[in-house]
């Protein structure tokens, strides 16, 4: 087990270097380099800030040296300072992270809790009424622009019906609330964002679960279970479901980047102070060090998500560990 984990971790090292290299190269896409474009596009950047930036990134040195220096900093989680308020980038990101992670985790829970039963039920009654209904739902989920859905929901539940707040994560008089009211207040603010964040992923997971379950239902051990007289309910919910869920774990790991990326959209629509909104604001203000920091951290989070999914998968299915590198 330990050897397996170590070997797997070692495989991540080239990917980690690749992530930092690409983040670095993106920063140098800008004509004239980051300090030039930031000062010309953003009048708020002072001459001193530009000099500091040049020095920070060592922009007078050869590219390869610059990359090496940057890498050394990144490993120590030092992404420099923001142009806007001169605070360390890492601190700015870390304080915004909990909201984003909380929303994404909640939507993951919803995706699993709703998507797996939908997929399993449509596989069990293939081409039945429920299957057809869920197929419509899946296609709609794949095709609907999330921000449009957000606008529609905002206008119905927020503006017309006044049921839910439409921006921020707490009310203005939040500080005066008692604890239960505070929790309720935050929950009310997060209902729409979490639902929206789950919507796209829900379609994907339920579809994937359906095909995984269909494959499992044709396996011989299912026939065996039926042949030995187990009730159908037990065949489906114990034998089939357990095996069909396994591949879904991997897909879940792969859907992390889409979830994190989607946070830009719903956090800026609902004015939620999270990583996505910070990223959006940094892009609008061309705050390069923050952009690079979030890009790298986002990718590293994804890498971690994939790694955890891989480990969970091989923990659940020990055949993988004995059979090579798990691919």
């Amino acid at each position, binding site marked *: 087990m330990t050897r397996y984990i170590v070997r797997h971790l070692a495989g991540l090292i080239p990917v980690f270097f690749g992530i930092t290299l690409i983040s670095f190269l993106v920063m140098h896409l800008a004509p004239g380099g980051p300090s030039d474009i930031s000062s010309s596009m953003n009048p708020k950047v002072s001459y001193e800030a530009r000099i500091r930036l040049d020095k920070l990134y060592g922009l007078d040195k050869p590219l390869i040296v610059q990359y090496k220096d940057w890498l050394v900093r990144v490993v120590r989680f030092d992404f420099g300072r923001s142009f806007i308020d001169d605070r360390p980038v890492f601190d700015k990101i870390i304080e915004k992270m909990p909201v984003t992670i909380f929303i994404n985790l909640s939507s993951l829970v919803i995706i699993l809790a709703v998507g797996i039963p939908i997929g399993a039920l449509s596989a069990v009654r293939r081409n039945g009424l429920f299957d057809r209904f869920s197929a419509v739902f899946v*296609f709609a989920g794949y095709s609907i*622009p999330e921000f449009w859905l957000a606008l529609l929901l905002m206008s119905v539940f927020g503006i017309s019906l006044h049921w839910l707040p439409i921006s921020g994560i707490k009310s203005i008089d939040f500080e005066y609330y008692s604890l239960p009211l505070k929790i309720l207040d935050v929950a009310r603010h997060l209902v729409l964002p979490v639902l929206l964040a789950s919507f796209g992923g829900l379609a994907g997971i339920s579809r994937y679960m*359906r095909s995984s379950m269909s494959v499992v239902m044709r396996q011989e051990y299912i026939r065996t279970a039926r042949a030995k007289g187990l009730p159908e309910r037990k065949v489906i919910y114990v034998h089939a479901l357990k095996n069909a869920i396994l591949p879904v774990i991997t897909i879940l790991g792969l859907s992390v980047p889409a979830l994190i990326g989607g946070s*830009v959209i719903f956090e800026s629509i609902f004015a939620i102070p999270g990583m996505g909104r910070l990223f*959006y604001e940094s892009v609008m203000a061309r705050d390069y060090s923050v952009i*690079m920091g979030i*890009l790298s951290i*986002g990718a590293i989070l*994804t890498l971690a998500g994939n790694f955890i999914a891989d480990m969970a998968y091989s923990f659940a299915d020990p055949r993988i560990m004995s059979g090579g590198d798990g691919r």
Partner: protein
Amino acid sequence: MKMRVNKLAAAGTVFIALIAVFAIFAPLIASHDPAGMDTRSVLSPPSREHIFGTDPLGRDVFSRVLYGSRISLSIGIIAVGLSVLTGIFFGSIAGYYGGKIDYAIMRLVDIMLCFPTFFLILAVIAMLEPSIYNIMAVIGLTSWMGVARLVRSEILTLKERDFVAASRIMGAGGSWIIIRHLIPNAIGPVLVNATLGVGGAILIESALSFLGIGVQPPTASWGNILMDGKATLGVAWWVTVFPGAFIFFTVLAYNLLGEGLRDAFEPRLKDRS
């Protein structure tokens, strides 16, 4: 099941053709100049004069949606073309040559897949400027990984087949075999992927424009009309509902067509899923 899916795919095709006609003949169909402001009818609801109503500057939403379809569709199609070409290029080289080349290309794929797509696209656009061409290039160059994996796995099995060995014995070089024999045989799944990809690219473009980082006003795109819709939400539902519905149904049409093609190209899959 088969009949139903194919009917849906046919409906998707008809809708795609319809939107294409709208886009191509936009100047003939549009009732107003898409940029023409009319201060006397600001935010007027749908009427005979303005069938989708007008926006905060008094521009005709229907005409803007028509002209916007030109931008949104061409970005979707060209971005996917670029991503398919890039994916085929990397995927076929990795699959055919194997070994260290394969390892390097597949690690590149892994690395690219780690970046939250939308973050990467936003970051690159922030560095360059949000012109239509940059948006096409950026969407294309950040979405080729799926195609590359697909082509690689097709080629891994194809290259062991006898007709490839025959070609090699006759003295054909690697690039000849890849272009003449391997890619044509792997094109089916790629086509499916590309059709589904057009829908995805249209969604990304509209989200970018909605955030104000995509197609820049006054050029209309489906996404940036919705930006005006957000500002007038609760006052003028028509600025939000109509362009969004165009995005939704167009993407849906591409997805239905893609699924239909998948059933046609991969009958095995239909049986399984």
